[in-house]
């Protein structure tokens, strides 16, 4: 009976800790939903073995990142700061894994939104995930390309349009995302490698991911999955 009661109390206190952490995080991290999961070690010390935080639809630079998780191993939480100031402070940990998932649909929505905001006109712009490549099919007026980049591609212009296809790989360095064109076809011409290399130099980095506070990390890995871009530290 005592064992049962003690087990129930531990479970209750862990659930209450999860709730307190979620409440404190809601103060600083604005997103659709926050979920917390803590796991205690098998020993009797009561120390946490892991702390996982999940953020759903978290806006980063205006882009609603579908899922973000921060997973601490052996975390020590400042309970005083949590209970008195409603602040999450992880005083020490042995490992922190930060992972993000951005869906294909979010990328499409973001493209449409940005194109509208920048008054970027296009007849066709299709985005498709084909791991490990992102495929693009497009038909855009030449005027929508920046003059400095247009010069590089002017030999391929037909009827004042760029129509074609691109297969890109993504790379990430220090939380900056780089596009690596593996194949680009413009107006029926496959772009030769030297032009691709120059294009790669000019357009990169395509995106800078700011840090989600209060976590301390630098994203260094990127992978393309069937429906998601997967980023991790």
């Amino acid at each position, binding site marked *: 009976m005592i064992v049962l009661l003690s087990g129930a109390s531990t479970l209750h206190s862990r659930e209450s800790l999860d709730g307190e952490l979620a409440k404190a995080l809601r103060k600083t991290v604005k997103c659709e939903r926050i979920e917390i999961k803590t796991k205690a070690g*098998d020993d009797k010390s009561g120390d946490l073995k892991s702390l996982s935080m999940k953020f759903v639809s978290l806006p980063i630079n205006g882009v609603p990142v579908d899922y973000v998780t921060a997973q601490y191993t052996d975390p020590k939480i400042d309970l005083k700061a949590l209970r008195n100031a409603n602040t999450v402070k992880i005083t020490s940990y042995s490992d922190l894994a930060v*992972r993000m998932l951005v869906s294909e649909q979010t990328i499409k929505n973001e493209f449409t939104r940005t194109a509208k905001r920048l008054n970027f006109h296009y007849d066709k712009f299709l985005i498709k995930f084909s791991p490990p490549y992102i495929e693009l099919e497009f038909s855009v007026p030449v005027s929508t390309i920046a003059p400095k980049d247009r010069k590089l591609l002017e030999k391929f212009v037909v009827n004042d349009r760029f129509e074609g296809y691109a297969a890109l790989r993504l790379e990430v360095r220090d939380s900056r995302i780089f596009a690596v064109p593996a194949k680009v076809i413009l107006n029926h011409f496959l772009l030769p490698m030297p032009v691709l290399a120059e294009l790669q130099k000019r357009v990169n980095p395509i995106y800078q991911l700011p840090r989600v506070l209060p976590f301390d990390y630098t994203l260094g890995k990127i992978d393309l999955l069937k*429906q998601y871009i997967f980023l991790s530290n």
Partner: protein
Amino acid sequence: MRKKKLIVFFSILIVIAAVILGYVAVLYWKGGVNNYEPPKQTYATSREQVQADLHNLSKAVEAYFVVNMEYPRKLEQLQPAFLDRIGNDPASGTPYRYTLSETNGAGHYRISVPNPKIYNAEDLYIEDGVLVQK
């Protein structure tokens, strides 16, 4: 003598022009709509393919964790959101093995080839994102 030099010079010019024209023709031929597809992934050996498969499966398992806050119970749960297909070990044609364990409160996953001896290895697996081959 001068005439001979001129012939050689023009011959070289013609060859250069032909090479350039040929190169442009190849770029044009390869730029058709039927070539709107990503470059093919090729692996020199089945060991290379296994390593790529294990890496892809591991990334999908970790992505599953991001969405669900727990690892999948079986690899089939990774379809269709994270992977198109699970695939088999190329050498034996049998499915990859997937195991979940929990040590001291922390979850761990392992994806391994069914018979590592085919690859002259004692062990060939990926555990928590780290490839192990010995």
